[in-house]
C-alpha cells in the first residue's frame, strides 16, 4: 500500500531509511487493523437491537482500564523500538559523516542549484574551482562529502533516489554526505518553498561509474596547470 511507491533507492544508507519506513509501516498497519477491526466489530455487535440493553461499563477501575492500558504499554515498547532503530540510522546519515576524498559544495539560490568543485588542489576558493548550474556529478560507490549553503532564502536539497534531504540556509555551511551506488541520472528537486520560481527549481545528479568519473574529471580539468 505504501512501500511499493518508494522510488528506486541507489544510496548506501537508503536501505536503512527504507528499513525504518518499512518497520513503522508494518507496526502502524497492525495497529490500524486491530483498532479499526475492533471498532467495526463493536459497531456491528452492539448496534441497537430490541431487547438488548446497554451495559454500565465505566472503565475507571484499574481492572477494567487494563483493557486499554495494556495495549498502551505495548505501544510504548514499540515506540522505543522505533526510536532505538531510528537513532542508529539517523546517526549514520546525519551525524557520523565518513571520510571522503570527493568534496562538493552545493549552494541554493533563487532558483538554481550552484554546484562547485574544488578542483585538483582540493581547496575551495582557488582558481581551479569549477562551477556548474543545476548539474551535479559524483562517482558511484564512493562516499562524497557535501557542503550545503544558500545565498538568499531557505531551499531544501533533496535527492529522492538517495533518500537524502537537507534544508540549506543563508549564513550556514551544513555538512552532509552521500554514497551513490548506481550510475545514472537522477532528479534533484528543491523541497522548500523559496519564492515564485520554486516550482521547477531542480537539478540533475549524474552518477558516473569509475571510468566515467575519471573521464569526466579529466575533461573538466585537463590542460589546466595545477
Amino acid at each position: 500500500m505504501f512501500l511499493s511507491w518508494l522510488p528506486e533507492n541507489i544510496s548506501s544508507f537508503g536501505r536503512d531509511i527504507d528499513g525504518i519506513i518499512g518497520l513503522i509501516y508494518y507496526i502502524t498497519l497492525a495497529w490500524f487493523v486491530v483498532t479499526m477491526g475492533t471498532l467495526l466489530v463493536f459497531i456491528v455487535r452492539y448496534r441497537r437491537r430490541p431487547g438488548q440493553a446497554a451495559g454500565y461499563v465505566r472503565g475507571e477501575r484499574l481492572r477494567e482500564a487494563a483493557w486499554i492500558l495494556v495495549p498502551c504499554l505495548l505501544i510504548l515498547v514499540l515506540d522505543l523500538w522505533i526510536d532505538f532503530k531510528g537513532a542508529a540510522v539517523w546517526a549514520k546519515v546525519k551525524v557520523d559523516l565518513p571520510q571522503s576524498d570527493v568534496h562538493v559544495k552545493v549552494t541554493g539560490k533563487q532558483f538554481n542549484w550552484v554546484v562547485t568543485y574544488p578542483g585538483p588542489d582540493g581547496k575551495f576558493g582557488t582558481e581551479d574551482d569549477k562551477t556548474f548550474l543545476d548539474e551535479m556529478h559524483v562517482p558511484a560507490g564512493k562516499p562524497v562529502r557535501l557542503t550545503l549553503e544558500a545565498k538568499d532564502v531557505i531551499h531544501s536539497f533533496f535527492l529522492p533516489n538517495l533518500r537524502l534531504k537537507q534544508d540549506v540556509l543563508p549564513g550556514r555551511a551544513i555538512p552532509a554526505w552521500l554514497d551513490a551506488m548506481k550510475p545514472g541520472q537522477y532528479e534533484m528537486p528543491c523541497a522548500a518553498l523559496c519564492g515564485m520560481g520554486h516550482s521547477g527549481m531542480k537539478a540533475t545528479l549524474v552518477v558516473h561509474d569509475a571510468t566515467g568519473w575519471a573521464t569526466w574529471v579529466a575533461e573538466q580539468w585537463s590542460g589546466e596547470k595545477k
Partner: protein
Amino acid sequence: MTMTATAPHEHHEAAGFFRTYLYSTDHKMIAKQYLLLGLIMAVVGGFLSYAMRWQLAWPDTEVPGFGFVGPETFNVLVTNHGTIMVFFVAMPILLGSFGNFLIPLMIGARDMAFPRLNALSFWLLALGSTVLCVSFFVPGGAAPAGWTGYPPLSAKAEYTGVNWGLNLWLLAHAIEFAAFLLGGVNFLTTVVTMRAPGMTMGRLPLVIWQQVAAATLFLLSVGPLIAGAVMLLMDRLVGTGFFIPERGGEPLLWQHLFWFFGHPEVYVVLLPALGAALEVYPVFSRKPVFGYRWIIWATICAGALSFIVWAHHMFVSGMDPRLAMPFSITTILISVPFALTVFAMVASLYRGSISFELPMLWGLGFLAMFTTGGLTGIFLGSAPADIYLNSTYFVVAHFHYTLISAVIFGGYAGIYYWFPKMFGRMLGTRLGQLHFWSTLVFFNLTFFPLHWIGIAGMVRRIANPLQYEMVAPHQWINVFSTLSLLGLVASQLVFFLNFFLSQFRGRPAPANPWNATTLEWTAPSPPPHGNWGASMPAVERWPYEYSAPGADRDWVGQRAPTVEALLRGEGRA
C-alpha cells in the same frame, strides 16, 4: 470547591437588532457569530483549495470561476488556504463557537465570566479576518511565503515581490492571536470560577475538559510567536535583522518560535473536536464513556508533551543534528496518551446500544480518520524516516487526516449534536445522511492517494507537478484527487443547504431531543438570555450516567432537582 452562581443579568428586556446580533454579550449569540464567521471563512479557504487543486491537476489552465493561477498565484493560494483553515476556520468553530456556547451551558452558568471581553475577542477576530481578506486586494497581492512564513523569504519584500500583502498577513495573525488570548482567559476564568453548585472538576463533561486544555495550551504557547511576528514585521518595516543572516540574524529562530506554538496549536484544534466526539458516544450508545479519568490524564500528558516536541518539524532544517533524536523520542511517545484516548473511545462502544444518528456517524468518522492521521504521524515523528518524507505530499496527506478529522468530522459531530440546542430546531436527517456519506467517501478519495504520490517523491508547494520526471507518471493521482475534491466541496453545499433550510423549516427541537444527561439539555431549546430562568441549576452526579443499574430509565441527568436535594446528598454518583 463549590462556586456561587452569579446573579441573573438585569437587562433582560427585548433588545434591538444592533444589541441582539452585533453588539451582543450573550455567549450564545457570540457562539453563533463565531460559527458564522468560521463558515464564511471556510467558503473562502475552500475556494482557494479548489483553485489550487485545479492547478495541480491541469497546470497552467484557466480555473473556472477563478482565472489563471500559475506559479506566483499558486504560492498565494497555498499560503492563505493554510492560514485561513487553521486560524480562521478551525479555531473560530471548534474553540470560539463550541467553547462559547458550551462552557456556560454545561457548567451551569448564565454567561461567560467577562461577557464584554467575550464580544471584544469576537470582533477582534472579525477584524483579523477582514485584514486577511483585504490583503488579497493590495498592490502586489497577498502573502506567498507559506502558512509557516519562514524567513528570510518572508523577511524581505524583494524575495517574494510582495510587500503589503505579507505585512497585512502578519498583522492579521497578531490580531487573531490577541482575540484568542482574550477568549482563552475568559474560558479558563469561567470554568474555574463559575461552575454550578456540585459541578466539581471530577464531574465536568469531557468536552469542557478538552476546551480548558485547548485554551491553556494556546495561552502558554502563543506568546513566543507573537514576539516572533512582531520581530518579523520589524524586519520588514524598520530594517531590523532578527531573522536575516546578513544583518546578524538567525532564520532558524523563527522556526523554533513558530513550532513551539505550532505543535500545541494542532491540539488546540484537535482537543475540542475530540471532546465533541466524546460527548456524542455515550449519548448514542447509551452507556458511560469508558475511562473518564484516564482520558483526562491522557489529555494532560499529551498537552504537556506537546511543548517538548516542536523540533520534529525541523529535523532537516539545519539545526544541530544531535538534537533530532531527543525530539523524535518525545514525539513518538505522544502516541501513547493519544492511543489511550482512541482505545477509550473504542471501548466506550463496548456493550453499548448504538444508534447511528447523524452526530454519532460523524463521531465514528472522526475516530476512524483521526486514527489514520495519527498513525501516519509516526512516520514523520521518526527522524530518519522524515529525512525522506519531510516536505512531501505524505505530510500533506497526514495533516489533512488529522486536521480535517478534527475540523470536519469532529466539528460536524458537534454541530449536528448541538444544533437543536443552538437554534431550537432539528437538522434535517435526509440531507444530513447524504452530507455524511458523501463527505466520508470524497474525503478519503481526495486525500488518501496523496500519501502515495508523496512517497513517490512529489514535494509540497510546487505549482506544476509535470515539471518533475518522478511525479509526471503519477499525475493521474493529482487529477483523481482534484476530481474528488470537487465532490467533497459539493458535499459541503449539501450541508449549507440543510443548515439554512433547517433554520426555518426544521422540526422544532424539544429541550432534550437525545435523552442526554449533561446540563445544557435541561435549558430550553434555544436557551433564553441568562440560560436558566429564575432557578439556577445544581449538579449531583458525573456526566455519563447511562444505563445505570437500578435506575428506572436508561439515563439520569447531572442536574439535581433542587439545590436542597443536592445538599441532602441524594443520588450522589
